[in-house]
């Protein structure tokens, strides 16, 4: 594998390798601190991002490499009308690996067809964001010690959330996964996800609009933001928005070893008071995102430890 465009580009064994490497980086950071010395990562962010760009940059710095790039399209030649592939092709002469975010779907794939260096899709519009999924998988693995045999609840906007679809897709490769989808009827999981992933693999799932009912059965609760603009009318939004806010009270019936996740940024869907609960993992996800990106950079650069 030369580029990473989508989580489906990775075999299950490659995902397992990345998780193992990330876990080793966490335990033995000194082994990796100079491993990418004299290597350069270019972060080409044609639209703003805080977490993902800084995570990639921190990852490369912690591997001993350096970082070049831009953080908005205004500061690149695309503001002069240059094509995406021309910009990326140019940068490929300056860097050893590229992490790229672009508002247009498929832009990293188009760029990858014209470059000689590995390209990582760091988010292409609403289409794909594979390193978020890798961060989620590493977090689940670190919290549970496995990626199989568990009940995973997804709550909030399950219709438009790319992170939700991608994680369902990735977890469905492992045995004994069951899902509980908690959402208002306006934001239920799309039929094509049910047909192409769940039904095709005979995976059990429940759809509900009540968070409380299935809370005791969950091993993982993956929260997402319910966005006002997704509703057809304001009255429905106001009626539904509070049903999907996670509070300490709602966790009363949850398992003691539940792991609460969220791709962030959050608005109000998880009460700040939940942050102090040991079951809250969403900031660990941020940290794990850096480690899994370190592992990914090593894999794509063919650097063996």
């Amino acid at each position, binding site marked *: 594998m030369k580029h990473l465009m989508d989580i489906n580009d990775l075999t299950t064994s490659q995902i397992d390798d990345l998780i193992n490497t990330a876990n080793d980086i966490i335990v033995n950071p000194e082994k990796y601190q100079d491993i990418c010395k004299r290597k350069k990562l270019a972060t080409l962010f044609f639209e703003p991002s805080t977490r993902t760009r800084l995570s990639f940059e921190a990852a490369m710095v912690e591997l001993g490499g350096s970082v070049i790039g831009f953080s908005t399209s205004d500061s690149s030649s695309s503001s002069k009308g240059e094509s995406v592939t021309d910009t990326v092709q140019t940068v490929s002469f300056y860097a050893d690996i590229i992490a790229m975010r672009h508002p*247009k779907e*498929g832009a990293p794939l*188009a760029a990858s067809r014209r470059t000689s260096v590995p390209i990582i899709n760091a988010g292409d519009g609403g289409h794909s964001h594979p390193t978020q999924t890798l961060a989620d998988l590493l977090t689940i693995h670190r919290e549970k010690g496995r990626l199989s045999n568990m009940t995973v609840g997804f709550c909030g906007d399950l219709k438009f959330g790319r992170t939700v679809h991608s994680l369902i897709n990735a977890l469905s490769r492992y045995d004994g996964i069951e899902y509980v989808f908690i959402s208002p009827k306006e934001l239920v999981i799309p039929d094509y996800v049910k047909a192409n992933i769940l039904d095709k693999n005979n995976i059990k799932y429940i759809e509900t609009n009540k968070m409380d009912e299935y809370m005791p059965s969950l091993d993982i609760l993956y929260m997402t933001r319910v966005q006002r603009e997704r509703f057809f009318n304001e009255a429905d939004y106001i009626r539904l928005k509070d049903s999907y806010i996670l509070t300490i009270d709602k966790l009363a019936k949850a398992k003691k070893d539940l792991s609460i996740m969220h791709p962030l940024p959050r608005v109000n869907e998880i009460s700040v008071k939940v942050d102090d609960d040991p079951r809250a993992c969403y900031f660990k996800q941020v940290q794990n995102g850096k480690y899994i990106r370190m592992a990914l950079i090593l894999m794509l650069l063919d650097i063996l430890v």
Partner: protein
Amino acid sequence: MKIDSIVNGIVLDHIKSGNSMRIYKYLNLEELKCSVAVIRNCRSKKYGIKDVIKIDSIIDINLDVLGYIDPNITVNIIRDGKISEKKHLELPAKLVNVIKCKNPRCITSIEQEIDQVFNLTDRENRIYRCAYCETKSDKEEF
């Protein structure tokens, strides 16, 4: 109605009735200098009625386009007045520059001279998706 037999050329047979003019357009047959006959609503034992296109020259045909429009079409190559080759089509696994992605959020909507690539993702339901954004192709285009 009588159309002269072809000595050396191509006959596209078993075209679903009504599709012949679309095929004429997508194969750019209007650019040919040779005779081309588009015969609509012929009687067919197999389909009831069908369209047929006869081309009075052996040319390169884009079989991917034909296979995408209608995989039941038969391509007969005629040499010396006889069928020398009969090609049965199938849905192509990949379409390059045959149809365009209509998703305004797709990179193909802005990038210069980018190939329009679609992959066959569901053979049974004839679903093609854009290689870049995975948007389903619009079947109504044909």
